C-alpha cells in the first residue's frame, strides 16, 4: 500500500498581523495576548482533551499552557510559527503533568476501557462511515501511553522521531505504541 501522506494539524490560523500580537504580548500587552488566546484556544484545548482523555483536566491544562506561554514569550524567537511554538509548549505541559496520570492511576494500562463509562462531556462524533461508536470516546478510552502516541501521531501529525524525543522513547517504541493504539481502537469501534 502506498504511504499515507497527511498534512499536520498545526497550521497557523489566518491573521493579518499575527506577529504584531506576539510582539505586543511579549512586551506585556495582555489584550494582545488575549487575542492570541482566542485564536489558538480551540486547537490547544483539543490537543489537551485528546491527550488526557478528560475535558475538565484539559481545561485546566489549557490554562496552564497559556500561562506558561505568557511567561516564556520572551523566549519565542520567531524561528517557527507562533502556533507551532505554542502547540509544542502545550504538549510539554501535558506530558509533564503528573496530576493527570495520578488521577488515572488505577486504570489498566493493558486493555482499553469501557468507552461508555468515560465521563467525556459533549464530544462531537466523527462522520466517517463504518465507525460504530464515537472515535473521540474511543481515543479517550485508550491507555495513557498509547493514547498520547496516537494523538500526537495520527491526530496532530508529529513524526515518530519527534514523538520519541518528546516522550523519551525510541522511534521503534513509539511505532509499537501506535500500532497497539490502532488495534485497540479497532476493537473498541467494532464492539
Amino acid at each position, binding site marked *: *500500500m502506498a*504511504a*499515507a*501522506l*497527511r*498534512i*499536520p*494539524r*498545526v497550521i497557523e490560523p489566518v491573521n493579518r498581523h499575527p506577529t504584531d500580537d506576539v510582539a505586543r504580548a511579549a512586551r506585556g500587552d*495582555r489584550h494582545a495576548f*488575549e487575542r492570541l*488566546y*482566542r485564536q489558538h*484556544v*480551540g*486547537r490547544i*484545548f*483539543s490537543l489537551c*482533551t*485528546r491527550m488526557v482523555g478528560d*475535558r475538565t483536566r484539559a*481545561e485546566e491544562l*489549557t*490554562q496552564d499552557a*497559556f*500561562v*506558561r506561554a*505568557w*511567561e516564556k514569550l520572551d523566549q519565542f524567537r520567531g524561528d517557527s510559527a507562533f502556533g*507551532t511554538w505554542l502547540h509544542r509548549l502545550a504538549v510539554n505541559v501535558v506530558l*509533564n503533568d*503528573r*496530576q493527570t496520570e*495520578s*488521577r488515572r492511576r488505577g486504570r489498566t494500562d493493558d486493555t482499553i476501557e469501557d468507552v461508555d463509562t468515560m465521563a467525556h*462531556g*459533549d*464530544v*462531537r462524533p*466523527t462522520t*466517517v462511515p*463504518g*465507525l460504530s461508536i464515537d*472515535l*473521540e470516546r474511543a*481515543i479517550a478510552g485508550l491507555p495513557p501511553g498509547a493514547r498520547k502516541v*496516537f494523538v500526537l*501521531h*495520527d*491526530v496532530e*501529525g*508529529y*513524526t515518530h522521531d*519527534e514523538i520519541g524525543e518528546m516522550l523519551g522513547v525510541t522511534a521503534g517504541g513509539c*511505532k509499537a505504541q501506535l*500500532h497497539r493504539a*490502532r488495534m485497540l*481502537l*479497532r476493537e473498541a*469501534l467494532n464492539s
Partner: protein
Amino acid sequence: MNTFNNEPEELDAETRAIVRAAAGLPELTPSRDLWSGIEARIQAPVIALPTQHEQVAAAQRPPALPWRRMALAASLLVAVTAGVTYTLVKRSSAPPDHLAAGPTNIDSSLAVAPVAVAPVEAVSMKATEQTFDREIGAMRKIIDDRRKDLDTATIAVLEKNLKLIDAAISESKAALAKDPASAFLMDRLTHAYDTKLQLLRGVANIPSHG
C-alpha cells in the same frame, strides 16, 4: 514538525479509516471561557512554577517544618504588632518626633528588630494597600483554583495563619486611624501585608499533593 508525515506501515482498510478519521477530527470547544482564569494568573506577580525535578525535590523534603516556621513567624508577627500597637496607642500623648526619630528611640523592652522607616510624605498608604489587595487577591485566586490539589492540612494551616495576620492588619489599621502620620505604624502595616503575601505565595508554589 514536518509538512508531510509518511506512514510506512501497511494498513488495512479499517485502520486506514481510523487514521483518516483521526486526522479529520474537529476542534473541540471548552465548556467555559478559560480566559478569565488565565488573565487572573498572568496579572499576578510572577511565580515560577516548580519543574518536575523541583517537585520531586520538594516532595522529599520534610513537609511539616516550613509550616511550623510559617506559623511561628505569623504568631511572632501578631505578638510584635499587637505589642507595638498597644504601646504606641498608650503613648499617644508623646511628641510625634518620638516615633519619627527611628527605632533607636523605641523602648528596648519591645525587642523589635530595626526597621527602615520610609519618609511619610513619600508613601501613599492607600495606594500601597490597594497594590497589596490586588496582589493578595490574585494569589488567593490561584490558591482557590488549586484548592482541590492542595492537602487539607495545608489549607487549614493557611487559613489559621491568615486569620492571625489579618488580625494584625486590623490592629495596625485601627492604630493608624488614631495616628495617621505614624511612619512606624505604616511600616508595621506594610510588613503585615507583605507577610500575608509571602504566605500566599508560598502556598501557591506548593506542588500538588497527588
